[in-house]
């Protein structure tokens, strides 16, 4: 059984579909209960796997993970891992954003994810190896004047996963992190970008293929690895004039 957080749409839904098609039982979690239930019904009817859906709002302070953790515990050795392609952006994410906006963005994109992973790691395991997969954004390559808090939170979560990977070296835990470029989801729907957007279904296939491998940090689409290096090398005198 895999736990997928943020499974109601976009990348999370695509991952749920690929994993279900491969015969994996799933626990789907998202803030949008109606959508997650619809995804669960669809996957059960199409692939004959067991899929449970739960509501979880990562934006609230101290979210209640009790039910999720109970399920993880009940699956015992059959629990294979957790994938967290959850995140949110806000059009208010500029220098004018208020404190509650900052709080919400940090909770969804970083704090609640860290809390959930830490709680899951406390669930006793005997023999099984689990995989923890995080998802970041190319917004964290270098700070810029838009999506300021989102970028900061995504940078923080990437750093957390790097620490997590290091901390879990001897703990039968595989830690992976995907840095996502513009994806063909609603999050980037209105952005006209000169480069092709990543296809969620292709990402999902790759995540499934590599789910047990110690691959560390990956870029998707892959060309963002090169672009990230170039963006980092741009001198500040030029970078400060770029609008993107």
């Amino acid at each position: 059984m895999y736990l997928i957080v943020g499974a109601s749409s976009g990348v999370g839904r695509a991952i749920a579909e690929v994993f279900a098609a491969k015969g994996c039982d799933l626990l789907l979690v998202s803030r949008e209960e109606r959508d997650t239930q619809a995804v669960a019904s669809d996957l059960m009817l199409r692939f004959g796997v067991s899929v449970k859906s739960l509501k979880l709002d990562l934006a609230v302070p101290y979210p209640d993970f009790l039910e999720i953790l109970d399920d993880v515990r009940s699956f015992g050795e059959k629990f294979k891992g957790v994938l967290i392609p959850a995140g949110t952006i806000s059009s208010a994410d500029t220098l004018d954003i208020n404190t509650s906006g900052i709080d919400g963005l940090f909770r969804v994109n970083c704090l609640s994810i860290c809390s959930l992973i830490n709680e899951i790691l406390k669930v006793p395991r005997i023999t099984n190896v689990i995989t923890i997969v995080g998802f970041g954004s190319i917004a964290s390559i270098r700070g810029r004047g838009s999506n300021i808090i989102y970028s900061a939170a995504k940078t923080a979560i990437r750093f957390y996963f790097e620490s997590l990977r290091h901390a879990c070296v001897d703990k039968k835990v595989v830690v992976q992190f995907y840095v996502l470029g513009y994806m063909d989801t609603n999050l980037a729907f209105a952005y006209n970008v000169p480069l092709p957007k990543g296809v969620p279904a292709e990402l999902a296939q790759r995540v499934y293929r590599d789910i047990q491998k110690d691959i560390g940090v990956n870029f998707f689409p892959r060309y963002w690895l090169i672009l990230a290096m170039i963006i980092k090398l741009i001198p500040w005198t030029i970078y400060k004039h770029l609008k993107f």
Partner: protein
Amino acid sequence: MNEKLVKDSTFVSFDGAVELCTKHQRPDRYKHLEMDWGSQPRIVRGGGYSFSAASFGKKILVQEIGSFDRFLDFDLLHKTVKVEAGMTLGKLMDWAMKQGLYFPVLPGYPEITIGGCVAVDAHGKNPWKDATFSEWVTEINLFHPTHGYMPLSREENPEAFGLTCGGFGMTGVIVDVTLQLVELPSNAFAVKRIPVASLNEAMRKLAEYSDKVDFIYSWHDGTRRGKDFGTGVIFLGSWLEGKRADIGVRFNNKIMTSRSRTEMSCSLWNSYTVKAANRLFMAINQSSSVGITDVDKATFPFAYNTLYHCFYGRKGFAEIQVLVGQQVAETFVQKLQDLVEQYNPPLVMISLKMFRGKQKSLSMAGEGYLIALNFYRNSKLCEFLDRIDQLIIETGAQPNLSKDSRISRAVASQTLSNYAGFKSRLLMFDPLRLYQSELSNRIGV
């Protein structure tokens, strides 16, 4: 509301006649469907395969619901399945056939959505026997900002159910649909071809066989004139008995959209190429031998023959489809032939089916012959089509709004038996008239 969920997109009708840029939303969660757009006119778009501009319009927000394509419930005992309206026919059939089930009313392209089929009340390959799509719909879940979510069926909110089936999306968002499936008899069809020398002969054969076979339609060479007018062939298909082990059902994944159809800058169809292609098609299908066709190929013939539509290029094509009553069918055909001889329009092909429909909306209702004419575009076409409109009015025929992007308010109001009733009932249901399209504005609804 996050304004980033909307962008400007250019849409083109499948026949290439209407192209415009407007606001575009692609909801992927229920809360996106429920966003407050005030009095902004809007329309839902499925696959965008309607030949006319039924799913977009000037200054109209397009809500594309392809993400709503999930199976929600399945009742094995009653063979009903509840699916979201953005599901394609191909996805439905792929799943249904694995369960040993089938849906009897399927238009010819697998990327058409279930919601789209309800909205235009589509028909399949034997509407005489199977009636139209909506006859197989047991329940609809409709969303309208004023009414919220409304369960519609023949028992619950029957008035809104009647308006929605064949209402071209004007009643709101068709969110999910419960469909009645039937047992899949086999994995293949036996297809017989009967050559015919005229449209009248084809009509006689259609009347003779429509009750007896599972699909039936005719094809006629549109380039023939004089005594050869109407030369063609009738295709009759019946389910084979039992499952044929040597037939593997393969689903064609090649997707043609209204946009990709227009990729060729010029049309490859002209009087010479059409004549040559039609002669070749006729020669191939001349033999009256029985062939075996797998169910997918028989169900979705256009998925295997995308070149026919692509060859029309950016200039596009025109299709007219009319329901002609049996009493006046011969008169209609004679007058049609007279007009063809007089104007020599760029007619590519003619197709006939027998039809039976009983909706009370804007879709065709009643019994008769469904006559479809396909044209490539040239300077002679407009005048000819205007004369056809007159013929439709004179003979009491009904045009199919989803096939013809030119039908005017005057023609629609004089020919569609439910036009006035639909318009007044729709206004009672939605006084704000939130759901609009180029089509609804053109025909004055």
